[in-house]
Each structure stands twice: as C-alpha cells, then as structure tokens.
C-alpha cells in the first residue's frame, strides 16, 4: 500500500509500511547507514503525518518482513490476541498516542491490551511521541516478574550486578560482586559476561556464584551470559543454572546470525523451567537486545532499526522472561552516533518493551568512539528512573574492564534512588538489612560491620581481609 502526505504543494509518497515507518523514525546513524532514513526533516515529518492516519488494523494485513520467509513475523501474526486488541481496534496510530496519554487510561487497561499490540504498532506510535510522551506512557505500565525475588513493583528499581573480569578470574569476579552487594546492588541478577566462550568456564563460574549465594542465603538469581547452547550444556551437566541468557533480534536471519531459532529458545526455556530453581516464581529467561543488531548482521530487510528492535520484543515475550535488557549504546556510533540518539533510543526501547508487556531494563551505556560521556548517562539514567525502568546495570566505577565500554555504576544507582526515592526488590531490601548493609530506610550504613560479614577470611583464600 502507498501512503502519502501533501504539504506546501508538495506530495511525499511512501511505497509501503516499512518505508513509511523508516522515514518517520527520528534521525539516527544506523538508518542512514542502512539507507532507509528520511532524506530531509520535512520528509520525516510528512511521513509522521501519514503514519498518524494509518489504522492499527492495517498492521495486521501488511507485514514489514514477509510472513512466508520469517518466523518472527509468523510469531507476531499467529499469536496476535484479537480479544485483547478489541479496545484499540478502531484507532489509528495517531489516536493510539492520544489514548496512551489520556487521563482515563489505567494500569489494568494498559496491561490488558499488551497481547493485542504488535511490535510494529508500538514502534509506529513511538515515532509520533516526544521523549516526554515516551516517559509518561511507559510510567503507566507495570510489569512484575519473579524468581527468587520480585522485580518491577511500583516505586522500585533493581540493579544487575555486572562483575566482569577479562580473564574470568574467580577472585576478581567475587571481589567485584562483594563491592556491588556492599553498595546495595544485585537484585535484578548477578550476571557475568564471560571472556571465554566455553561451557566449562560457564559451569565453573555458575558454581562459584551459586556457592556464594547459598553461603549468605541471598534472595538473588545468578547468570553467566554465555551462548544459549553453552547454558543448555551446563544444565545437562547438572550445573546450577538459574536463568538462561540469550541475545536476540527482530528477524529470523538476524537470530540465525546469533545461532538461534525460536525452537531452540523454546527448548532452553523448557529445560530451565524443569529445574524449578525459583522460589517466588519461575520467570527464568534473560534476554538482551539493542537497536542496530539486525542491520549489523545484514538482516534488516529495509526495516528501520527501531522497528527491528521492537520485533525482538515479540521474541522475548514468548518466553515470559524475568529480565529484558536493551544494551542501548554498546553497538557503536555507526548505529547511534551521539548522546542525543542514544538517549532517544533508550527511551523508545523502554517504552516499546513495557507496552508489549516486558520487564524492561536498560544498560545505559556508550563506547568510547560514540559522542557521549558520563554526563549523558546521568541524563538517560534519570529519565529512565522517572519512566519506571525495571532495572539498570551496576558496573564497578561504570567501567567494564572486560567489554571495554562504560555503563552505570553502583554509585549511580544510589544517586537515582536518592533523587527519585526508588527502593530495591522487597526481598533484597530485607536481606540487606539483615546483613546490616543498609538501615531500615534502605540507606547504606557505615560499612565496617557489613564488610566483616561478607568477607570472612577464608572466602577468597586471602587469609583474612
């Protein structure tokens, strides 16, 4: 279908839905690199006028990637929930924006329509929304998940503790873990990105983390972020696997580039569920995503990177994840050039994921060749805190020494808790108080007592710390 908009005597035409979505997308380097971006600001806004008038029902009849050749499209269409779609069925994209921002919209209504929304509808409406709209609407969403604690409750924000080490050194990882716990971080997950891509390393790290957790009876889940096939190997070997991790993308071809299919994800999900290691719930998947992933695998099929990203969320929600993390600034400046683009993308991803019913977190981050610095991360962190992000990263000093990029630190989480009054997961708050790491108000206590508890002399084989 051809879409068009006329302004000042000139008519702008858009050949199909994917072209319209791409031209309506806010400027970012990846869409320019992928040769799908609008050629001028005027064309971009003309596309938005045209997009605003597209009925939501049209998204059920025109796929951006062919149904026949892409299993993600088939997943989106085949699992679309007509009943949930009913309250918004007669709206256009422009009306959906207004519906989302209206005073009357309740959390319950919003939760109810999630399975009636497709990623492309959500991506479309995000392109008509300013940053404040993305924050306001996302803040109305509530997505609560459970494993050994409860994540996503209102007024709370959790932190993934990320204790990476370039040589996977267990002592190095444990001292960063202890540092993070003493700063009140880790309730989302303690998650290691291993330097080595082997099942043996993953098992060794999983055992070390699990022993540590059991020693302190901590209401936390652990994860080694290795390829899903390594984790499945670890499960078979009897290793203590809490969460199955995988990077995912929004097209079948991009997922194949990651070495995964929906069937493989299903198999891994069932394997993890069978372990029944959760205590308060069984959300046992952890997914990471990021705009630009599909294009970097040359698997975007002319679809803009933000729409591809939203399609990855359709993959994620199939498996009821505990955590979905958009690693927004990791991909580099050829996809998100500067802090303006990174901040916008972070807010879009959080909004789109939440609207689709996902427990969205964000790795507020950048690489050194992007035009960004820690001031920009402060800005995005604060905005996402206001928007109600489920979790952020906690990296020692914000400096990941294994992946060589900058994220948010343990200190950053304390800052955002302080300015916005955000609490941790309730089970973790209780544990931190028992460990005398925090006081009854959740503030860090003077640290000697807590440090002595977490650092018995033999823990690291240090002979007294």
């Amino acid at each position, binding site marked *: 279908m051809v879409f068009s908009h006329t302004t000042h005597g000139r008519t702008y035409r858009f050949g199909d839905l994917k072209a319209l979505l791409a031209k309506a997308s806010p400027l970012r*380097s990846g869409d*320019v*690199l992928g040769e799908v971006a609008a050629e001028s600001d005027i064309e971009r806004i003309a596309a938005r006028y045209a997009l605003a008038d597209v009925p939501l029902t049209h998204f059920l009849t025109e796929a951006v990637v062919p149904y026949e050749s892409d299993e993600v499209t088939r997943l989106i269409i085949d699992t679309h929930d007509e009943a949930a779609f009913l309250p918004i069925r007669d709206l256009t994209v422009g009306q959906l924006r207004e519906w989302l921002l209206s005073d009357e919209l309740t959390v319950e209504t919003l939760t109810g329509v999630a399975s009636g929304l497709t990623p492309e509808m959500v991506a479309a409406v995000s392109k008509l929304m300013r940053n404040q709209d993305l924050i306001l609407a996302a803040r109305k969403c509530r997505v609560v998940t459970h494993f050994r604690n409860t994540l996503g409750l209102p007024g709370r924000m959790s932190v993934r503790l990320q*204790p*990476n*080490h*370039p040589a996977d*050194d267990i*002592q*190095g*990882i444990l*001292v*960063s873990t*202890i*540092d993070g716990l*003493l*700063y009140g971080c880790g309730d989302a997950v303690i998650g290691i990105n291993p330097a080595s*891509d082997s099942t043996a390393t993953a098992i060794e790290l999983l055992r070390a983390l699990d022993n540590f957790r059991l020693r302190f009876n901590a209401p936390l889940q652990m994860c080694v972020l290795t390829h899903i096939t390594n984790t499945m190997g670890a499960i078979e070997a009897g290793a203590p696997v809490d969460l199955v991790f995988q990077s995912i993308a929004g097209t079948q071809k991009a997922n194949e580039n990651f070495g995964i299919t929906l069937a493989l994800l299903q198999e891994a999900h069932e394997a993890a569920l069978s372990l029944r290691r959760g205590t308060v719930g069984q959300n046992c998947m952890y997914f990471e995503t990021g705009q630009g992933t599909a294009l970097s695998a040359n698997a975007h099929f002319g679809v803009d990177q933000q729409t591809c990203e939203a399609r990855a969320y359709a993959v994620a929600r199939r498996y009821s994840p505990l955590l979905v993390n958009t690693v927004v600034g990791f991909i580099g*400046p*050829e996809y998100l*050039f500067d802090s303006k683009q990174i901040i916008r993308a972070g807010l879009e991803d959080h909004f789109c994921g939440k609207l689709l019913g996902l427990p969205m977190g964000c790795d507020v981050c950048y*690489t*050194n*060749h992007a035009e960004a*610095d*820690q001031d920009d991360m402060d800005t995005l962190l604060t905005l996402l805190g206001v928007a109600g992000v489920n979790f952020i990263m906690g990296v*020692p*000093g*914000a*400096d990941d*020494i294994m992946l*060589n*990029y*900058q994220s948010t*630190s343990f*200190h950053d989480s*304390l*800052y955002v*808790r*302080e300015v916005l009054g955000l609490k941790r997961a309730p089970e973790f708050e209780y544990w931190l108080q028992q460990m005398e790491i925090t006081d009854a108000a959740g503030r*860090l206590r*003077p*640290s*000697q007592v807590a*440090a002595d508890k977490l*650092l018995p002399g033999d823990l*690291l084989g240090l002979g007294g*710390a």
Partner: protein
Amino acid sequence: MTKSLATSDPWRTLARFTSARIGLGRVGSSLPTEAMLDFSMAHAWTRDAIYTALQTEELSRELESAGFLTCRAWSRAKDRVEYLHRPDLGRRLSPNCIDNLHSHSDSGRRLSIVIADGLSSLAPSQHALPLLKCMLPQLSEWEMDDVIIATQARVALGDEIGALRGAEAVVILIGERPGLNAADSLGAYLTYKPHVGCSDAERNCVSNIRPTGLSYERAAHKLIYLLHEARALGCTGVQLKDDSDVVRLGAVR
C-alpha cells in the same frame, strides 16, 4: 589531591585482585572527587587516542631509520566523523592512492605489513615498530614488502592493500577500540591470499598488544606461528587455530 572528605571502603584492599574500579569510597551516594577525576582522565585518554591523527611522517621516519621502506595508503573515509559514521568507507582504498600501491612479487612469498590508525592512533604509533622489530628476525621465509601506512582504516582495508601488492599474506597492525584501561591497545589481523571482500571468518586476530597486555615478544611469537601455519594450510580464518590463543575477531571491523 588534598585530603578527601569521603568515607573510604574498608574492603578497598580487595582492589588488588582486579583492575575493576572497586572500593572507591563514597560521599553520600556519590563518588569521591579524585575517583571521579580519575575516570574522566581515563576517558580523555581514549578520546584523544581516537581523535588524534596518526603522525604518518614521523612514523615513516622512525620506520626508515629502523631499515624499513614505507609507502602511504588511505581509505575512502575523508575524515574522522565520516570514518565513524561509515565503516564501509574505511574498508575500501581511496582511488587516489591505488596507482601508487600497485606492485608485483616474483617470489610469490611476499608478506605485506600495514600499519593503520583504526580507532586508536596511540596504539600503532607506540607499539607497531617495536612489534615489527621483534618479528623481523623470524621472517626469513618471507619476502618483506615495504611497510604501508594507512589512515582512516578498518581491518578489511589490509586485504585490498595486500591484493594490490601481490602479497601471499598481509598483516594489518591497527588501533583497537580504546577502553578506559587500554587506550593504546594494538590488534594484528592476518589474511592469507588477501582479496577485496574477505569475510571476518577468513582472518586471524591477535588482540590487546601493549606492554601491560600481550607483550611484543608473545604477540610476535603468535603471529610468526600463524603465518607459518597459514602457508602450510593455504588459508587463514576459522580453520587455522592457535590453540586457545586465537583471540575473537571484533575490534574495528
């Protein structure tokens, strides 16, 4: 720095077990001033490494005093901003330098070395020549080509240069994406029978070459080993294994 008003962490001695920034202490919720400035300085070094142009004439003089002949190449990316936006342009030679790069080898055993800025000019300017000096005595089985100094370059540019030089193999020594603790990290990528359009899977990589990472001696040893094995196998890439020592591809693709 003057004495800090911050509370120090009793576990700060654990910092000896990792290079991660742990035990930093805090003032309220926030970083002590010195820790904050340390981070900013590390970031400034990485920015400087990315945006400082490789001093090609100085590097050329240093190479020539060490007995190497040199020539120049540059990519289609006209400046740093375009280089960062368009990785594809950094992978292809500018038409303006191609004529000067045409060459022919009678021996069929030519090794071309390319020294390239990549994402850190600091890395090649500090570490390329010392690494080459370590390698040279072990390269008697190869006909050494001139050293080609390339700018606004991505890894794949080495393959196009190697093809123009009639090289049996090409090694590109290129600045990796700088980390806060490693603004000067040099990567070496090896391609056997290089041609335009080689994929990442057809190269081998030795990464993190710098005195506090992989030493010149060890990096040279790996590269010589890989070169020898590449000739024996007739290829580089995923089929050529250096036990566990072949580092993942990835830095400046």
